[in-house]
């Protein structure tokens, strides 16, 4: 039987070696070529190795002719021109396809010669692709270093034909690309659309009607000024941090439970709140990164830096009892390193844990050198529920306030005092108990006649022996009685003191419970050795490795003999690091346009997609670093652009030709995230609570979801009152069963680091928005506010409150007809009216019918496509 390859199998569900992919849907292939069409350039332009050739070779060839020496075939690597087994002069002859083996193999008619081999199931190169390779070889087969691993440099501002459109550099890069395809940007969206778009994008919430009035008039006077003032205002709102933080929480798989086995609660609230505060305070991104990787390693870490280091504790963790601790330890570290790779580096480093990376120059040894930085945690590898209080798992740090500190000292002193009172009395009580025991053992046995002896003074005289015996008995009795009395009193007073002590102890627990705490990263004193794990198996250590970074990236500059996580953090945010800034700006760009300039925002490696606008990406990255990693400035720059302000309207054909808007020829239009949809409904109905921070909350969800999966019969108990109307970022996230209102709309379950959510459109989403009880309650709430408006304004009021748009006459007609029909329907069904308006106090039956009809009308508005969509 083959050796057990558990981790190997665990992390690499890919097709390697000769087993390889073909997509099973004809439609998918068509789809892909549509995409390619929209971003590829016209045939006349020169072939670019980075843009045109490397992706082809990576997909079809690198698995066997790439960086992994272990699986390399025919002593040929096509990922580099020179060096051992390099391609040039061996398989590729520059300027001559006839002399290039590669060319003959990819165009062979003979199946035994064809590359990629038919049994690999890899798609053969099509005509367009072979043509690109032909042109590349004929033009000299120039290799370029991989773009993402080169330090970005500020590109030359582009020259465009249309100088009128915008003076902003961002726009000029976008325009040049459009002009190269004989396209023009779309006109600017109208004021309402702009306001709604940017309010959602910067705060996660829609604008209020008042905000619409205000902005419309300001925009009419001076559009540029009004726009900038609006953006500055939005960036300064506390809701900004809540909104931007939410995306970060997907990326670092933030959750309220362990995610394995019994799925215990754990408390990372401090970390979540820190992320929100960091964005609101505009913490420079380099500090934001540094604090998370190594906040615990500052000489005098601040509270925030310690909390930030909790990033290293967000991984899944099993509770003790069934798994093997050493294996759990390895899994935790792997998870930690994977998170660093995805969140900061934009690389799939985890692919190199069993073997060298198949596509990127990351060796297995490189992987374990990174692993070594995170291998030295001073923590149990498994959760011991008995040691966990309030969800805090060691190591954690306490941050008592002065008042709490004083209160705790007072209570501790009291406890000591009580203990001092209790101890001697306890001792005495024990002593007496013991004495009584001894007495029982040594006292003379009472014979049956003894009592009679003592009582019968009328009886004949006692013998001297009898008399002596009686005396002794009496003496013993007296001693016993006095001891028993003392013991009784002692016990009374002990009980009182102990009660007092228990009470004080409870007070102490209550105060301690209120003390802010955070799970943090902590190093062991003695550095744990790290070995390459052969095939990734926890119990197969190979060569020992030292802490370090992959060789194709800039060198680490350690401040001490053994490099620390802080050295790694500094390296990560050094201006020479080619990845960190690019990965960050790309993900911020994605927040606004739905797709990053690099679509694969989690993978900037060879198998990632090349950027649609490479120079724009570099321009943003370089200026981001130069600005001191100023996040708000970056976001402001993006939303100030004319590109962002375009109208999103187009013809269906244009939508189909560039479904993801990679050309940026129009404004963004796509469905809002689950949290934004929920928060919007709460906000526009007037139910939203704006209270920030603090413990996670549980808005109602259908019964039985937790119990159906739980190991411990755990039941979901919804919160009540204002808590259930707080923003969705505060919703309790149980990994085994996250809230369905979120997951149905594509929120990930936070098991793994996710850099971009998918967006689907399903019937279960339709059911959720139509029928969810809280969403219907919100519709009822909005209906009540609507009914407070003058009758002739009501449709307009509700429509504008929900969509931020004004209804035209056709829309008013449709809604008015619906309303009339609903009134008729409800007027004849009082039972339905009572059900729908349950809990609402309404005077007359007629008013109740009115409320019911309006509730359904508002429910209709909340289900419009334009309501759940940002445009």
């Amino acid at each position, binding site marked *: 039987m083959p050796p057990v390859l558990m981790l190997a199998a665990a992390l690499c569900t890919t097709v*390697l070696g000769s087993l390889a992919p*073909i997509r099973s849907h004809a*439609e998918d292939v068509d789809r892909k070529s549509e995409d390619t069409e929209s971003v590829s350039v016209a045939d006349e332009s020169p072939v670019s190795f980075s843009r045109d050739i490397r992706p082809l070779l990576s997909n079809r060839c690198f698995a066997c002719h790439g960086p992994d020496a272990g699986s390399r075939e025919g002593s040929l690597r096509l990922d580099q021109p020179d060096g051992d087994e390099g391609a040039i002069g061996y398989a590729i002859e520059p300027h001559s396809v006839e002399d290039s083996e590669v060319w003959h193999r990819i165009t062979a008619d003979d199946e035994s010669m064809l590359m990629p081999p038919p049994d690999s199931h890899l798609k053969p190169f099509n005509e367009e692709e072979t043509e690109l390779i032909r042109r590349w070889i004929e033009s000299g087969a120039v290799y370029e270093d991989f773009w993402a691993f080169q330090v970005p440099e500020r590109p030359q501002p582009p020259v465009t034909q249309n100088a009128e459109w915008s003076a902003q550099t961002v726009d000029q890069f976008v325009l040049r690309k459009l002009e190269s395809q004989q396209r023009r940007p779309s006109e600017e969206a109208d004021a309402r659309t702009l306001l709604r778009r940017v309010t959602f994008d910067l705060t996660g919430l829609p604008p209020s009607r008042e905000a619409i009035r205000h902005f419309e008039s300001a925009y009419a006077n001076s559009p540029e000024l009004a726009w900038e003032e609006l953006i500055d205002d939005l960036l300064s709102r506390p809701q900004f941090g809540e909104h931007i933080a939410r995306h970060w929480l997907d990326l670092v798989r933030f959750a309220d439970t362990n995610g394995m086995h019994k799925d215990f609660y754990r408390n990372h609230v401090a970390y979540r709140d820190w992320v929100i505060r960091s964005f609101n305070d505009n913490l420079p991104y380099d500090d934001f990164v540094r604090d998370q990787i190594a906040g615990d390693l500052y000489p005098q870490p601040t509270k925030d830096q310690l909390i930030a280091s909790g990033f290293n504790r967000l991984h899944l963790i099993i509770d003790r009892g069934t798994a*093997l601790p050493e294996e759990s330890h390895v899994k935790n570290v792997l998870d930690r390193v994977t998170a660093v790779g995805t969140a900061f580096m934009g690389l799939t480093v985890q692919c190199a844990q069993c073997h060298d990376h198949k596509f990127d120059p990351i060796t297995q040894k490189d992987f374990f050198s990174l692993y070594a930085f995170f291998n030295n945690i001073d923590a149990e590898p498994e959760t011991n529920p008995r040691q966990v209080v309030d969800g805090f798992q060691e190591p954690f740090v306490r941050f008592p306030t002065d008042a709490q500190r004083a209160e705790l000292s007072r209570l501790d002193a009291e406890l000591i005092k009580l203990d001092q009172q209790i101890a001697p009395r306890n001792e005495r009580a024990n002593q007496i108990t013991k004495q009584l025991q001894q007495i029982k053992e040594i006292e003379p046995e009472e014979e049956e006649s003894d009592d009679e002896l003592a009582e019968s003074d009328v009886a004949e005289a006692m013998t001297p022996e009898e008399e002596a015996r009686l005396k002794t008995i009496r003496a013993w009795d007296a001693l016993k009685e006095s001891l028993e009395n003392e013991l009784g009193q002692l016990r009374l007073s002990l009980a009182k003191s102990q009660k007092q002590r228990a009470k004080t102890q409870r007070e102490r627990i209550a105060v301690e419970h209120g003390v802010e705490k955070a799970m943090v990263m902590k190093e062991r004193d003695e550095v744990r050795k790290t070995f390459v794990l052969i095939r990734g198996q926890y119990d197969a250590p190979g060569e020992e490795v030292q802490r370090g970074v992959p060789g194709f990236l800039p060198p680490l500059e350690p401040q001490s003999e053994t490099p620390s996580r802080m050295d790694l953090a500094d390296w990560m945010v050094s201006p020479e690091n080619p990845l960190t800034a690019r990965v960050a700006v790309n993900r911020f760009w994605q927040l606004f346009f739905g*797709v990053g300039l690099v679509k694969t925002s989690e993978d900037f490696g060879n198998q990632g997609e090349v950027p649609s606008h490479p120079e724009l990406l570099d321009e943003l990255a370089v200026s981001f670093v130069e600005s001191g990693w100023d996040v708000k400035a970056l976001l402001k720059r993006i939303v100030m652009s004319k590109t962002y302000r375009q109208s999103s309207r187009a013809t*269906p054909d244009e939508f189909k030709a560039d479904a993801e808007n990679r050309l940026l020829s129009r404004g963004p239009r796509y469905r809002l995230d689950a949290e934004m949809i929920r928060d919007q409904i709460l906000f526009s109905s007037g139910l939203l609570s704006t209270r920030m921070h603090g413990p996670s909350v549980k808005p109602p969800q259908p019964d039985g979801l937790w119990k159906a999966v739980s190991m411990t019969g755990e039941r979901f108990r919804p919160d009540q009152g204002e808590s259930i109307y707080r923003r969705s970022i505060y919703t309790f996230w149980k990994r085994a069963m996250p809230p369905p209102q979120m997951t149905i709309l594509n929120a990930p379950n936070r098991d793994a680091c996710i850099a971009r959510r998918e967006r*689907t459109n399903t019937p279960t989403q339709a059911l959720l928005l139509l029928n969810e009880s809280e969403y219907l309650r919100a519709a009822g709430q909005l209906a009540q506010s609507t009914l407070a408006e003058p009758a002739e304004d009501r449709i307009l009021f509700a429509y504008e409150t929900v969509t931020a748009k004004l209804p035209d006459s056709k829309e008013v007609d449709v809604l008015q007809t619906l309303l009339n029909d609903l009134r008729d329907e409800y007027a004849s069904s009082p039972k339905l009216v009572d059900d729908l308006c349950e809990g609402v106090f309404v005077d007359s039956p007629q008013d109740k019918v009115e409320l*019911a009809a309006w509730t*359904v009308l508002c429910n209709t508005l909340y289900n419009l496509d334009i309501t759940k969509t940002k445009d």
Partner: protein
Amino acid sequence: MHNHITSTSENRRRFLANAGMGLGTTALASLVLGPKLASAAAPSAASGAPSDIPTGCHFAPKAKRVIFLFMAGAPSQIDLFDYKPELVKQFNQPLPPSVSQGQRVTAMTRGKEQLIVPSRFGFSQQGESGMWMSDLLPHLSTQVDKLCFIDSMHTESINHDPGKTAFCTGTELPGKPSMGAWLSYGLGTLNKDLPDYIVMPSAHWSGKVNVQALYSRLWGSGFLPSKHQGTSFQTSGDPVLFLSNPSGIDPAIRRRMLDSLGDLNRKHFGEIGDPEIETTIAQQEMAFRMQTSVPELTDISDESPETLAMYGEEVNNPGSYARNCLLARRMAERDVRFIQLFHRGWDHHSKLPANLPGQCQDVDQPTTALLKDLEQRGLLEDTLVVFAGEFGRTVYGQGKLDMDTYGRDHHPRCFTALLAGGGVKGGIRHGATDEFSYNVVADPVHVRDLHATMLHLLGVDHKRLTFPFQGLEQKLTGVEPARVVKEIIA
């Protein structure tokens, strides 16, 4: 669309939604996703494939759908299927080190002596095939000629959470799509009114000890578009979340409201041009149809008394394994692609003799009824039924070692899976274990081999059902070679 992979059905939906534009809402509802239209509109996957190969298949399938009966917690193969009569002589003897070979054990029995415990339950030969079966499964024993026993199943996982995750998604680490999600993605939908992939966890079970947790990732879509995720049917309340209209809104009002909603959405589509709006309209109509089709599916009042009796008394109890088996048959009739039951309570670390019989009683008659019911309706031939847990149990005992209270620890090195229908040979055993039911000695079948075989029976080449993620063409069977177990295919 925003997700970069648009599946067959999505394109189809778009196509048909286009065709429906301008027609009334009712007409649109009847047009969207009719199976006949769908197959006309969507070409078969492999180019040049003969036209009788269904969409998404690489070759002609033997099975159209799967019912997966997952025995969460890992039933003991030694006490149920893998008969080892010689063990009786070795009660309380140490397991020879030559057998255990220092293999990894769990933290629960690490460092403890490995003392052999034979099964305390009787075995007898059944059916024409003379298959050995435990006396604990008298009903299922009548079906052995339909069953294929794979005694040589093995896995790497030694604990439940990774074990179930690996069995359901192909790898131990969370984040990968489940079997049913892969099928939904690869093969598309067969039924226009129901989800492709439905999951039914039992609400109760007999064994009260050590009930292991389930995780929604076991039926999740991982990196596949989330519409492929399993829909977990709830035992109480709506079977599908948020299915019912809220009280105060009846179907007529909902219909009326959807008509206006559709009118407004269509108007906006005309102005904005985004085809995504058409998808929204189509999905709202599909939601409306599900409000009828799902209750019709879960309402068993039209079942004959004979059928109900076949599943046993418990079938009247919503959430029971028996009820879920009956629902599975109803789903199979309606062409739900992948139906997965989870029955928990098999984790018998101690008091196995007391707890195993009850668990067996939970599943014995209903599983048997399901097989018979499918067969009677001509569904068994193209429905693959699989009965398995995440791993097996050890020959050595755990807890107090006497014949009434012994338990068994987790054992990944061999266990038994049962298959029936869907093009699988009946009345056979495949693979063999040593005399201790400890190591596989012939024809090992890894979990990923079972996955490859299941896909094969459904007409899918496991090497070609792939999805690009994190730079790799990911697949259910993962990185290690997987083999289709051709020997068991009829």
